[in-house]
Structure formats: C-alpha cells, structure tokens
C-alpha cells in the first residue's frame, strides 16, 4: 500500500514540477532578464576588441596608447601617444589637433595610497612624484580620471581703439591695446595677447570686420585699417577652443609588472 502511495506522490510531484518549470520559463521577462540582456549589449564595446592597440585606453574619440613606463628615484613616468577615432585623422596627432586630451591621472600603490597629477593639453607623458624607493613593483594601477574636450566657442570681445584698453575671453586669454598709431591714411592697432596654459601655440584670434587687416607681429597681433575713418572699436573673435574638464575613470595599461 505504501508503495502505491509513493508512486502517486512521485507522479504528482513530477506534474507539479513540470508545471512550475513551464510557467517560469514561459513567463514574461522579469527585470533581471532585461538587465542581463542590456548589460551584455552595452558592455561589449571598445574594451572587447581594441581600436588601435590591445593596451589602449579610449576616452571620447581619442585613443591613448601607453608607451614606456620608467621608475626613477621615487618617480614613475608614463609615456603615451594619442590617436583619434575621428574621420579626419588616423595617425598620431599634433598637440594642437587633439579633440580630447588627458587631464587628471591617479596612481595607486599596492600598499595603499597614491597620488593625483594633472597634465597639460597635448602632453605625451605623465610623471608621478612618489616616495623614494617606490618602483613599478609597488604600483597597483594607473588610471586616467579626467580629460578635457575641445569646445569651439567662437567667443567675441569688443575693445576700444585706445591705448591701454583691454578685454578678456572667458577661457582666460586677455588682450590689451598696446599702441594706436594714427597715420595719414591708416590706423595701426597693436595688441598684446596673454594666453593661459591651455591655449597652446596658436593665438587663434581674428578681427570680425574684414576691414581690419592683420599683419605679423611678435608676441601679439597688429591690425591695419586703411579704408577711411577707422572704427572706434575693434571686435575680436577667438577661434581656439575652450577645454572643458570631464570626469571619468579609465584604467591605463602599464605592463605586467603592475
């Protein structure tokens, strides 16, 4: 009699279990299923297959390719190259052409601690000052924790055509009228330019009115107006971009030692 009951129970158990499996398997996707699918869709990208190098770090449309890592008397220096994934470039970029550039870095030590440093736009190496005796074997990781993106703003300022007049662009570039030379048929305006560190080697400032003709001058710009009475003001536009800081974390490959 017990054997019969056991068989009945087993059959009932089988039926209930099959029903459970069918119900669960056919039920609408639950949020966990969606999460799983979404994660596998979005985590593949650039890290799965390298764009330029197996050791690369991608931020915005820029690829950072690490080079030599050298430890010397408590400092660790990482050299790197930058390449663009944009349609206009394919090779290593000149400093002035980088659309996004490393800005802030951190180095983490295995023993804990580390330090954060900043690099200039267009730099191709970063140096961490650490305590004496630190070598590559002590390094847990180097991370890029911030970068800057170029934003062409096309900001304008208006200056009086008067010696000593001045103005400043929001990015920090200041312009001062050093000299105004009034001649018989023309007016020459000499401007002194003071640029912050980010603005690089290009002045990138133009007069909006094409009547102001630019001529070369060391350390600044000289404009000539020879079309009759000169305007009382000169409007200038800055074409060099503003570099906007962007926070993020991107691990940087520094070799198998770390």
């Amino acid at each position, binding site marked *: 009699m017990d054997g019969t009951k056991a068989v009945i*129970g087993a059959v009932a158990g089988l039926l209930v279990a099959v029903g459970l499996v069918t119900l669960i398997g056919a039920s609408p996707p639950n949020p966990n299923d969606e999460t799983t699918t979404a994660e*596998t869709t979005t985590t593949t990208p650039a890290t799965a297959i390298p764009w330029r190098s197996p050791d690369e770090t991608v931020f915005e449309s820029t690829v950072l390719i690490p080079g030599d890592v050298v430890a010397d008397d408590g400092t660790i220096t990482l050299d790197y190259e930058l390449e663009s994934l944009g349609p206009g470039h394919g090779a290593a970029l000149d400093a002035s052409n980088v659309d996004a550039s490393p800005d802030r870095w951190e180095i983490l030590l295995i023993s804990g601690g580390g330090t954060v440093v900043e690099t200039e736009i267009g730099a191709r190496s970063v140096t961490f000052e650490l305590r004496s005796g630190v070598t590559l074997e002590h390094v847990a990781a180097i991370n890029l924790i911030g970068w800057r993106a170029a934003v062409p703003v096309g900001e304008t300022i208006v200056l009086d055509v008067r010696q000593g007049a001045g103005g400043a662009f929001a990015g920090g570039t200041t312009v001062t009228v050093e000299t105004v030379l009034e001649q018989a048929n023309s007016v020459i305006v000499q401007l002194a330019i003071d640029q912050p560190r980010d603005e690089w080697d290009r002045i990138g400032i133009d007069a909006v009115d094409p009547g102001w003709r630019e001529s070369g001058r060391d350390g600044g710009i000289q404009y000539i107006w020879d079309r009759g009475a000169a305007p009382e003001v000169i409007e200038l536009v800055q074409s060099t971009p503003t570099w906007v800081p962007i926070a993020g974390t991107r691990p940087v490959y520094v070799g198998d030692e770390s």
Partner: protein
Amino acid sequence: MSRPDYETLLRSPLDDEPEPTGWGSALAGFLGGVVVVLAASWLLGVGPGTAAQTTAPDSSTPPSSDAPIDVEPNRYPPGFLEVGDSIAMKPTGAVATDGGFVVSFTMAAARDADVDELERPIGGTWQIERGDGSIARANRLVYDAAHTDVIGVGFPGSLRGDETVRMVARWDPVSRDAEAEIPFTGTPFVAEGPVEIDVGAGLTLKVGPIELGRHLGRVEWSITGPGDPTAAVSIDVTLLDAAGAPIGAYETQPSPRDPTRANGVAKMFWGPGFDVHPDEATTVRIIAVVTVADRHAVDVVYDLPQAAGG
C-alpha cells in the same frame, strides 16, 4: 575466521528510524519527483535567465589572442550615435556663453570605415528640447581650424539640466570649383576688384580686394545668389609666367569648413618649395572651391553634458 557482519558494519544510525507510514511515502515521492524534474531542467538549460545567456553571451570578457573573436565589435566608441554613413557624433562638452551656451559635437568614424573615403559632415541642424516641452533651434555653428572633427553648436538660453538635444539634419558638403585670371603686376600686389566668378547653380563668387606679398596673401570674398546663399570658400592663388606655366602658389591653410558664411577672408601662404620670386609672374589665377551644405534629415537624440563655466 568468521566473516564480518557486513549488515552491522553498513548499518546507518538512520536505519533505526521507523519507516514512513501512511501518506508519508506519497510525500517523499512527491518531493522526489520535484527534485528530479528541476534537476533535469537545470541540466538541460531550460528555465529562467538561460535564454538571455544563450542569445546574448557575456561578451565583456576581452578575447584572448589565441581564441577567435566571436563577438560583433561596436562600430563606434562608447556614447557615439550614428548620424550618417559610417559617421557618428557625440556631445562631449558644453560651455556657457553670454546669452547662451555652446555644445561641442565630436565625430567618430566607424571601425570598419575607410577614413580616406569618408565624407565628413560640415554641419548640421540641432535643437534643444526642454522638459517643459519647449524647443530651441541652434542659432550658430562654430568651427576651429585645428579641430576638424568637432563642431561647436550654439543655443540660446541656459542649460537647466532637463534638456535633450536632437539632431534633425546632417549637412554633407557639396563642392564646386571656380577659376578666374587677372594680370599680375608684381609684389606687393593689390587688386581691389571685385572679380566676379560664376560658380554655377546660380551662385556668384565675388573676390577682392586681393593682396599678395612676398610670403603672404589675403583675399576677401562674398557669395551671392538667390536666397541669401552661404558657403565655405577656400581660395588659392597660382602665379603664372608669360608662357602660362605656374611658378608658385599662395595656399589657404587650413581649408575653411564653415558653410554658414556669406563673406570672409582667405589668408594664404606662399607655398614652400618655390624658388622663383613671385615678381617673375605675369598672371594671377584665382582657384576657388565653394562648398555648400547639402541637408539630409536625420533623427538622433542625445543627453546633454553639463555646461562648464564660460
């Protein structure tokens, strides 16, 4: 020697428990059936979650060098959305300005694209869509000659944090070449002009004044035609000797990209490698490339980056 009492040795303490009676055997059978079916379903890969794992494998694991790559790589860097054939864009930064803000749109080429064959957009039409339903069109585009994969897009107002930006048109370049010749009288050369050049499609390029020095040149231009046309205009000047042979050229560097200009100034440099002095020329050949925007509808929506202080 007697045989060991195996029954005693193998006896479990549980053997002393009384055997189930009544419907206990049915309960045991029931539980056994459940266990059997669930175990079988697990082994056969049937059940919740496994479908997603089968169709979308965890591809975040970097491929090893000795294993074939079996995942489809993303065609663009993270965050970039396709706006055209093998071209994607992403808003990378924003800067507050006097009376508005500028968002930079950076371009990326598709992973499998031949960048030498790619046609880069020269602009676009964007609009801000705010949380309250209001829409504001971009009111200016900003170009930087050194950053040719970035376009600054200016909007009125200020960023509030509830906006998205929608790209509604991509501007592809359509270029037309135009030429004209005028006599050359030696440096410094100034021709007031304007020299009018028919560009086609109803457009006329007016060039002048033209100023040519020993190393530098400068040409003012304007574009006219029906409907207040605008264009990006690149002008080179080639000097020809009496036999009509070129002896050198002033070149605009870099080529302008802003197609929203009705007029402008081309700044030129006497090309390197020309040993002949410009004064040996007799003719100025003006070579212009007029690029206008060919608009194509797109519909791409982005979240906006936060604006940095202007």
